[in-house]
């Protein structure tokens, strides 16, 4: 087990898992308690449009994904807030159109498209050191923003009407939250791929929420669970020679099922 660590790619992979898990635990907690899983899935898939943009115009696909997912987050956020009906339909359409745009742009790009699949299904074993620095920077941004805006984020998650009455800039805070989701999605793209982002974003927070009843503790526990899942998944995929992203997701999914079973056994009393 230890000898695998002599490979630089393995050390980078473990590091990437840890860095991503921090963002995942914090932002995933908001996604779960504010019930914005659907919109987060939309942001993740629409980000593929940015990958296509990067390929087509010959700039970094990761940069493209950041720009595109932030734009998608703001667009979907606006739709979510300002239309009273069919917000989910419109978000679903934006989700698919973003992805389709990416595919077409990649089609139109000449030449060899080496790591295209890695954006869709993740490639934690091929994370370069520069990407680790980007992840670290995004982690710092997310932690700083959440610490600075904690009381407002808590308030809009818990009771938006009350926060509005207290003159909290609810719309702006919500948009900032969606942008942080976009950052997190781009980080996770490297680890599990855009298609499976939503599982790793929500599962650690969902498990954590079953056992702790405090948002800060929920974030910390979710981050730790994320580290456990990515690390376990990574080792399993290494030794069993399986796709790493999918293995991480299956480990998370199995843990979620297990946690629900444990919860059920612990609380046999009827729900009030």
């Amino acid at each position, binding site marked *: 087990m230890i000898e695998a660590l002599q490979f630089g790619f393995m050390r980078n992979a473990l590091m990437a898992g840890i860095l991503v898990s921090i963002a995942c635990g914090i932002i995933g907690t908001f996604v779960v308690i504010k019930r914005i899983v659907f919109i987060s899935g939309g942001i993740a898939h629409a980000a593929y449009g940015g990958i296509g943009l990067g390929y087509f115009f010959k700039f970094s696909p990761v940069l493209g994904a950041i720009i595109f997912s932030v734009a998608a987050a703001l667009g979907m956020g606006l739709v979510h807030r300002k239309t009273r009906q069919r917000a989910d339909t419109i978000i679903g359409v934006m989700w698919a159109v973003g992805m389709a745009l990416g595919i077409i742009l990649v089609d139109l790009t000449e030449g060899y498209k080496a790591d295209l699949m890695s954006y869709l299904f993740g490639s934690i074993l091929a994370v370069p050191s520069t990407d680790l620095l980007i992840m670290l920077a995004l982690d710092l941004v997310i932690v700083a923003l959440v610490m600075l*805006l904690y*009381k407002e984020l808590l*308030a809009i*998650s*818990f009771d938006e*009407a009350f926060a509005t*009455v*207290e003159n909290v*800039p609810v719309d702006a805070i919500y948009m900032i939250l969606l942008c942080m989701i976009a950052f997190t999605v781009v980080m996770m793209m490297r680890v599990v791929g855009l298609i499976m982002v939503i599982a790793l974003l929500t599962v650690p927070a969902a498990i954590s929420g079953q056992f702790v009843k405090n948002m800060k503790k929920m974030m910390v526990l979710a981050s730790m669970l994320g580290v456990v899942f990515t690390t376990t998944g990574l080792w399993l995929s290494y030794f069993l020679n399986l796709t790493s992203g999918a293995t991480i997701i299956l480990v998370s999914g199995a843990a979620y099922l297990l946690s629900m079973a444990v919860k059920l056994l612990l609380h046999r009393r009827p729900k009030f």
Partner: protein
Amino acid sequence: MRHVETTETPREVISVRHLWAGYDGEPILEDINLSVRELDFIGLIGPNGGGKTTLLKVLLGLIPPMRGEVRIMGKSVEEGRRYIGYIPQTVEFDRDFPISVWDVARMGRLGRRRLLQRYTAEDDDIVAEALRSVDMLNLRDRPIAELSGGQRQRVYIARALATDPNVLLLDEPMASVDPRVSASIYELLRQLNERLTILMVSHDMSAISSHVKTVGCLNRWLFYHGGKQLTPDMLEAAYQCPIDLIAHGIPHRVFAEHAPEEEEVQQ
């Protein structure tokens, strides 16, 4: 429909004049006039979909009026709503939300602190006092998921008190509370009414009318005379069907012919 004016009326806390409000251009409330004065305890009853929550939303500035004017303490809604302690219907919340009694109550101080500003020791004192006044300070670290309906309602009252309000606005305060507990909450509200104005809406007319000072009916139109009794004609007009009630005075049917034939308003 007119507020009974005497020469020595207390200060007006909320003033609603010729208010029309609704969603997507469809009015749910028409020509509402209401004057809430200091230390009033007004209960407005009405059927579901009759516009009770819409009225509260307008008073809180959550939706703009279509027509008419609302003033709170003589100010616009955006400025005046800081004098309001809002107590929402508890069913709106996710019971599993990971938050403690203390953190909920402390949200009452949000309006006093800017972005990036932390809560202060003064805030903590005010929150502790608010929780003490509703008998919930000893449960301050309890997650709200573990509270009963009545306890949760007390926490929301504490949160509203922590805003240092002049008037409390309650939306269906007894919705998730059993009758035995609701009596104790009404008693708490009665005590608070010694220093605070209270306006509440509910569909439960029997409970509300025995605890408030004055009562009105709301169903698209507001029928409020500043009196304690619900008259059959008020109810008939509001509910659009005759309702048995012990009549006080001679029932007259001035509103009956105004009763609309329109379909029920959905919210």
